[in-house]
C-alpha cells in the first residue's frame, strides 16, 4: 500500500530510493537462491563425481580414511578390467554388456514394430471401449515385477525359456509395449489425419496413406520412443536376475550387482563398470531431453 502511494506521487528522489532498495533485496534474494541451487546440485552430483573418481583410483586410495578428494594416483586399470579378463581375452563383464546390447536392442525393435502400428490404429480409428483398452494397456506396466516374475518363471520353465536371451527379449518387449503405444499415440495424434484423408481421396488405400505420408512424419517420434524403450530395458534388473543365471546370457545389471557377492569387493571395478554402464544411458537421455517429461511418465503426460 505504502509503495503504491510512493509511486503515485511523482518524485524522482523517493522513486529512485525505492527502486534501489528493491534492487538490493532482489539481488540478495537472487544470490540466496543461486547458493541454494548450488548446494542442492552439489549434493546431487557428488555421488556421481565420487563414482567417477573411485573408478580411476588405485586400491589403497579407494579405502583411504579420511577419504581422498584430491592428490590420488590416477589409473585406468579398472576400466581395462571391465573389458579384459585377468588372463587376457574377453572378461565376463564385457560378455554381459554384449548381452545387454543384444537383449535391449531386440526388445526395443520388437516393441517398436508392434507398438507403432497399434498406436496409429488407436489414434485414427473409432474403436469399442478405446479408452478402456488404452488404460488396460498402461496398467499392465504398473504391475510389480517381483510378482509377475513368479508365474513367468514357471511359464518359462515349461517352455524352456529360462536362462535364454529370447525369454528376456519377450518379457522386455511386453513391458516396453504399453509405453511405446502410449508415447507413440501422442506423436500420431499430432499428425493431422487430414493428410491421410487427402491421400485416400487421391486413390491411396488407408494403409498406403499411413506408410507414405504419416510414417515419415513419425520418424523423430519413433526414434525418441525407441531410445526410451532402450533405456528402460538396459536398466532393467528384476526380470534379468530371476530369469537368467548363466554367464553367456546374463545382462549387465545382474552382472554388476554380482560383483559385490564375494567376501572382498573391488569397488574400483564396481565404479568403473557402473560408469561404463551408465554412460550410454546419459548420452541417449540427453538426445531425447525434449521428450523427457512424456518419456518418464510412460507417455501419460505431454507438454
Amino acid at each position, binding site marked *: 500500500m505504502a509503495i503504491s502511494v510512493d509511486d503515485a506521487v511523482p518524485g524522482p528522489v523517493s522513486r529512485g530510493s525505492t527502486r534501489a532498495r528493491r534492487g538490493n533485496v532482489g539481488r540478495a534474494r537472487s544470490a540466496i537462491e543461486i547458493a541454494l541451487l548450488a548446494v542442492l546440485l552439489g549434493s546431487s552430483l557428488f555421488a556421481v563425481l565420487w563414482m567417477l573418481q573411485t573408478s580411476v583410483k588405485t586400491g589403497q586410495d579407494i579405502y583411504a*580414511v579420511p577419504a581422498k578428494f584430491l592428490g590420488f594416483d590416477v589409473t585406468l586399470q579398472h576400466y581395462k578390467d571391465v573389458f579384459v579378463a585377468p588372463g587376457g581375452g574377453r572378461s565376463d563383464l564385457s560378455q554381459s554388456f554384449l548381452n545387454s546390447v543384444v537383449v535391449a536392442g531386440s526388445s526395443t525393435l520388437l516393441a517398436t514394430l*508392434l507398438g507403432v502400428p497399434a498406436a496409429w490404429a488407436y489414434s485414427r480409428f473409432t474403436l469399442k471401449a478405446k479408452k478402456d483398452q488404452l488404460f488396460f494397456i498402461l496398467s499392465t506396466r504398473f504391475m510389480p515385477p517381483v510378482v509377475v516374475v513368479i508365474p513367468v518363471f514357471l511359464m518359462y520353465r515349461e517352455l524352456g525359456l529360462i536362462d535364454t536371451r529370447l525369454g528376456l527379449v519377450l518379457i522386455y518387449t511386453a513391458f516396453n509395449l504399453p509405453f511405446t503405444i502410449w508415447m507413440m499415440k501422442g506423436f500420431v495424434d499430432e499428425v493431422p489425419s487430414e493428410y491421410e484423408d487427402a491421400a485416400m481421396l487421391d486413390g491411396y488405400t488407408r494403409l498406403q496413406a499411413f506408410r507414405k505420408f504419416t510414417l515419415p512424419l513419425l520418424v523423430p517420434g519413433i526414434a525418441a520412443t525407441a531410445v526410451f524403450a532402450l533405456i528402460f530395458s538396459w536398466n532393467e534388473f528384476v526380470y534379468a536376475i530371476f530369469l537368467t543365471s548363466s554367464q553367456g546370457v546374463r545382462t549387465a545389471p545382474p552382472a554388476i550387482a554380482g560383483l559385490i557377492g564375494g567376501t572382498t569387493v573391488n569397488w574400483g571395478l564396481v565404479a568403473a563398470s557402473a560408469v561404463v554402464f551408465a554412460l550410454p544411458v546419459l548420452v541417449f537421455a540427453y538426445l531425447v531431453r525434449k521428450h523427457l*517429461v512424456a518419456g518418464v511418465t510412460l507417455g501419460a503426460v505431454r507438454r
Partner: protein
Amino acid sequence: MTTSIDAPVEEAAALPPPPGRTPRLRDRGLAVAFISPAMLLLLGMSVFPLLWALYLSFTDYSATSSGPGSFVGFENYADVLTSSEVHTRALTTALFVAGAVALQTVLGFSIAYLISRRTRGRGLLTTLFLVPMMLSPVVVGLFWRFMLDAQFGVVNSLLVSLGLEPVEWLTQQRTALFSLILVDTWQWTPFIMLIALAGLTAVPKYLYEAASIDRASEWFRFRNITLPMVWPLLLIAVMFRAIEAFRQFDLVYVLTNGGPGVSTETLSFHVYKVAFLGFRTGAASAYGILMVLVVIVLAQLYLRYLNKLKEG
C-alpha cells in the same frame, strides 16, 4: 516431394478406387490387424501369468516339488492377511513410500521453483539435476552402499571432518530404512522436479503481470497463481512415484538386502523371499495377487485423475 504427390494423381486418374467397398469395414480390419499382435503379446506375457498366479494362489503348490499342489481355497490369503510378518512389511513399505515420496515432492518442487526463477542456464541446470534419475537403480544402490559404508564410506568421512559422529547408515535397524529413503530420494527427486518444472513453465506470464500490476505480494502470487496451476501436474507425478515406490525392489535388494534383520524388508522384497527362497509358490502367489490389487487401486486412481485432467 513433388513426385510423390504427382504420382497418386495420375494413378488415381487411371485407377479410381473400386466402388462398392465400404472403407469403414476395411478400416476395422486394419485396426484389428494392427492392434491384435500387441494385445496378444500383452495377454500372453502379462495377463496370462497373472491368471496363472491367481490359480496358484488357491493351491499349496511349491516350485521345487513335482506335484501340482492341492486346492486349499482361501487359506493362503487368510495366512498372508493375518501374518504378523506381513504386517511388519506393510508398515515398512508404508513408511518407505510415504517418507520417500514426501521428501521427493518437497525437494523436487523446491528445486523446480528455484530453477524456474532463473533466467539464464535453465536448460543446463535441469540437465545436470536429471542425471541421478537416468541411472539404473542397481548402479545407484551399489554406489550408495559404498558411500554409506560405516568404515571407509565417504559420507562418514565427511561427517567426521565436520566434527560430527560417524553414523552406521546401513547396519542399524533405525537408520537403514532412513538410508533407503534417502537414496531413493536422491535418485527420484529429479522426477518430481522435471514434472513440476513443466507445470511451472506452463503458467502463462500474463497472470504474473496482472498480479504485479495489482501489486500482489510474492506469497499471494505463489499461493494463488503458481500452486493452483502446478498442483494437478504435481499430483500426477506424486501418484506415479507412489506406485513406483510401492513396487520398488532393485534398490532394497542391492542396498540393504532387506537387513539389518528385517528392518528394510518391503512387501516387494518379502514376496520375493517367500517365492524364491522359501519356495512357497502358492502362498507367494496369493501374496502377489494382493499386492497387484493394491497396485490396481493406485493405478486406477492415477488413471482416473489423468483422464479427468486431460478432459478438463
